[in-house]
């Protein structure tokens, strides 16, 4: 395969990484029945916080690795904090999660721009490329998957960890039950609201990590307007598109990044004259088309023609129902 094409594939994987991490985080949160709508703002806030912390640490004389680690941790803490507000608002204060999340989106987005205004367009510490030994040298796969910064590798691990946790562990059973039917989880001795706190904060920390992946890796630094503006909404849409299943969610994230790459490439080609606005619509149109196809029953009818065991598998993969208790409150007793 030719070199430039592999490079494009590689850059798609790299560019998709923050989306992958953020949508995995939101998947975990929503699987527990909480919807954290603050993604767009909290990604910006954590990107800014992570960059500023790493920048300050480096200026204070810390070695680059330590500064970056501090930056990542601060970003995750920022994401977790915003998520905690959503959880407290939705669970303890019994407010509508959607309303709390939405207000927080606007608030944190503005907060990020306000607090970060003296740190725009300055160079800071950046996570460098790390070619994985052996794997990085493989043909085709190497340049596409294994010549990236560490955020990309973390996202790979997260995808499988999330899947494993959800579908292969007892804790994952409890996590899904809390989002599907909290009454049943309660009857089996699960502390429903405690789990919801835990997974909302964990999901928020991953959203924070996605922010750090931007400002310390993929789109280094901070700027106004923030370069990742709008990506939080995209991550939220990808979770729906992905049917709350980590593999499909990730597929959605990569698909989205690929379409973006295509649209950029087309815009750079002088021979093709298509409005960039129209091109930017492409991913959304595809997403809506997929959602309609999945929920229309056409696929259900198609599946009945398949043999039984295969049916069960495809139904699981194509499942598009949200967690049944998503966004609802639970009171024991």
């Amino acid at each position, binding site marked *: 395969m030719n070199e430039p094409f592999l490079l494009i594939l590689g850059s798609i994987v790299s560019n998709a990484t923050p989306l992958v991490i953020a949508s995995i985080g939101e998947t975990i949160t929503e699987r527990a029945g909480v919807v954290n709508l603050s993604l767009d703002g909290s990604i910006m806030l954590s990107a800014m916080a992570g960059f500023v912390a790493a920048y300050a640490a480096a200026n204070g004389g810390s070695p680059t690795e330590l500064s970056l680690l501090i930056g990542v941790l601060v970003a995750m803490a920022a994401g977790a904090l915003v998520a905690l507000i959503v959880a407290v608002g939705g669970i303890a204060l019994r407010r509508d999660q959607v309303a709390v999340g939405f207000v927080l989106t606007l608030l944190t987005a503005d907060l990020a721009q306000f607090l970060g205004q003296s740190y725009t367009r300055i160079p800071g510490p950046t996570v460098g490329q790390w070619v994985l030994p052996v794997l990085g040298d493989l043909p085709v796969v190497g340049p596409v998957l294994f010549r990236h910064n560490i955020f990309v590798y973390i996202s790979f691990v997260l995808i499988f960890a999330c899947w494993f946790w959800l579908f292969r562990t007892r804790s994952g*059973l*409890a996590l899904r039950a809390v989002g*599907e039917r909290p009454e049943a989880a309660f009857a089996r001795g699960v502390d429903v609201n405690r789990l919801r706190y835990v997974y909302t904060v964990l999901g928020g920390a991953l959203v924070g990590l996605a922010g750090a992946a931007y400002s310390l890796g993929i789109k280094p630094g901070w700027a106004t307007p923030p370069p990742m503006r709008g990506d939080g909404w995209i991550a939220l849409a990808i979770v729906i598109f992905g049917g709350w299943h980590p593999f499909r969610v990730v597929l959605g994230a990569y698909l989205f990044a690929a379409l973006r790459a295509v649209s950029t490439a087309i815009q750079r080609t002088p021979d093709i004259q298509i409005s960039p606005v129209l091109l930017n619509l492409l991913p959304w149109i595809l997403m809506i088309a997929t959602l309609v196809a999945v929920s229309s029953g056409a696929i259900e009818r198609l599946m009945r023609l398949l043999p039984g065991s295969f049916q*069960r598998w495809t139904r699981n993969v194509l499942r598009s129902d949200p967690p049944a208790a998503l966004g609802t409150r639970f009171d024991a007793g």
Partner: protein
Amino acid sequence: MQIELRHIHKRFGPVHANNDIDVTFQGGRIIGVLGENGAGKSTLMKILAGYQPADSGDIIIDGRVADYRGPQAAIHYGIGMLQQDPLDVPAFTVLENFIFGSRMRHTEARARLREISQRFGFSLDPDMPVSQLSIAQRQQLEIVRLLALNVRALILDEPTTGISAEQKALLFDTLRSLARNDGMTVLLVSHKLEDVIALCDEVVVLRAGRLTGRGEMPLTTQELVRLMFGQSFAMQERPAAHLGDVILRLEGVHLRDKRLSIEHLNLAVRAGEVIGLAGLDGSGQGLAMRACVGLVKPVAGRVFVGNSDMTGKPYRAFLRRGVAFSAAGRLEEGLVAGLSLTEHVALANERDMLVNWDRARRQTASQLAAYNVRGRPDDLIEQLSGGNQQRLLMALMPEQPLVMVLEQPTRGLDVDSAAWIWRQLLARREGGTAIVFSSDDLDELVAYSDRILVFYAGQIFEIPDASATTIDQLGHLIGGEFEMATIGKRLT
């Protein structure tokens, strides 16, 4: 396992749901827990199974005081409950549901599931999603799950609604085996007296939060009804009826919902007639009433209001023709929580695009006075007591409709409020309005009806002259023994 309940009290606001319940359940027996809706039996069972704590009182298991909170803790003490709507996770597979809440490993769980299922003849595919199981299979899964957790007492809440006769036989065999062979204590909460007669060794009866009776089986349906309702069936004077033309007619109507079906119902309601619908909760009265007002579309047959065929028309069309309905769930179906009284009146009466709030407020004030509703126009509906809500519902109804279809119009009301409601209803009836109502209160049915329809599992028996009813006959009929009755005929 022996379970003793000592002086159990539980209050929900002003309602004393369990009032000093004192009872002992012996192991190896199947005990029926009877009582009308709101008698407190579900509350008691939920306390026993850990779903809610008692305000005071003790639970003593095999001679030792058991103090637990939460269903999981109750299971540790050996008490498991099968809810009417089984508490499983529909998105999980059978095996996932079985494992969830236990400490079993995958392979061990698979073997246990197969072993217990086989003992009772259940067929549960471990990899099937629970959302694709029937209610009976979901019950089986819950029973198997609770048995795997070593419960020694099993509480079942209305387990026979929505399952087939064969599945019911299988369930009963299972319960008998658990009681006889394993010495388990089985508590059966049921409205269906035939189930209680078929299965139970003993019954306890709750009424208005108190334990009011118990009996050793075998008992007849009639004896059970007497235990449940008491004997205060005093006959009352009924105002004479002036019957007019037929104004509502069902012709060969078939109705179906998730739990039951009514077949080939013919019914003609005449102006000025009062028809009472009797029966244990959920026997088909609600379905029939909703069919009369267009809220449930008949599977077959026709519905006429006056001479016009209204089959398949929406409730709005019925309402325009003068058919009004009020549902038992006042705040769920009839009123809108979060809206003020004025807003309710405006919603019912205002026809213009813009609401004339002055007019609406004046109207509300006069309606509140006319209907003796204790509340202010700006109060939210949920701030009113049940009686006042019911009176407001009455105020919102058309002044002189052709037919009023009322689901349990006096449920939960004190005697005075109920009497007030009936004075209003009878006054409208003088003007030719027909009334179709359902009630849990047999006194009320006998006192106010011209005709009574008794519902039992979707079958209907008609008593053409309500005044000829006796307690024995009603008891038999409510329990489903239509064959022996001589005071009327089967309608379906």
